[in-house]
């Protein structure tokens, strides 16, 4: 169960880097907000899942 959580967290980091790279590479600077939102949401999601595993599983 917790191994999947590590996978989710690493996926969040890699997707953040991917969105950063794509928005810079294609010159769409306004899409940088997506990577910022992804960084924040993946952090919150990881914390919520960690808390869920700790308390209820």
């Amino acid at each position, binding site marked *: *169960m*917790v*191994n999947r*959580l*590590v*996978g989710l*967290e*690493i996926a969040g*980091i*890699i997707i*953040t*880097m991917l969105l*950063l*790279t794509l928005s*810079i590479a294609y010159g769409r*600077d306004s899409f*940088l*907000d997506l*990577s*910022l939102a992804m*960084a*924040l949401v993946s*952090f919150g999601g*990881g*914390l919520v899942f*960690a*808390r869920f*595993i*700790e308390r209820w*599983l």
Partner: protein
Amino acid sequence: MALTRAVTVDVLLGITALGTLFTAVAIWVVRDFYERLHYMSIPATVSIAALAAAVLVLKGFSAPSAKTVLTVAIVIVMNPILTHATARAARVHEKGQWMPTTDENVEIIDTGRIVKNSK
């Protein structure tokens, strides 16, 4: 000058890709959960910092660079918090409690205790 900039960006992007690839292979090979957690810090620090440096070299000091640095700073600052929360969740899930159990030979240091002066 343009060639130097292009080579620098390529090297920094190579560091990003290699760090991420190394992490993927390491997590695949390593079987212990807590060791896997350690390997998670490579893309969250080295790779993403190299990516931000590449954007800074490519774009200079501009609005996209500032936004990139903000995103990278958020990831770098929040990754240790997330790692600790994950390790804590795994330990509580495995042992039932965060503190050391009686069968574990761990020295407990009580840093919150107030030591009174004997004089």
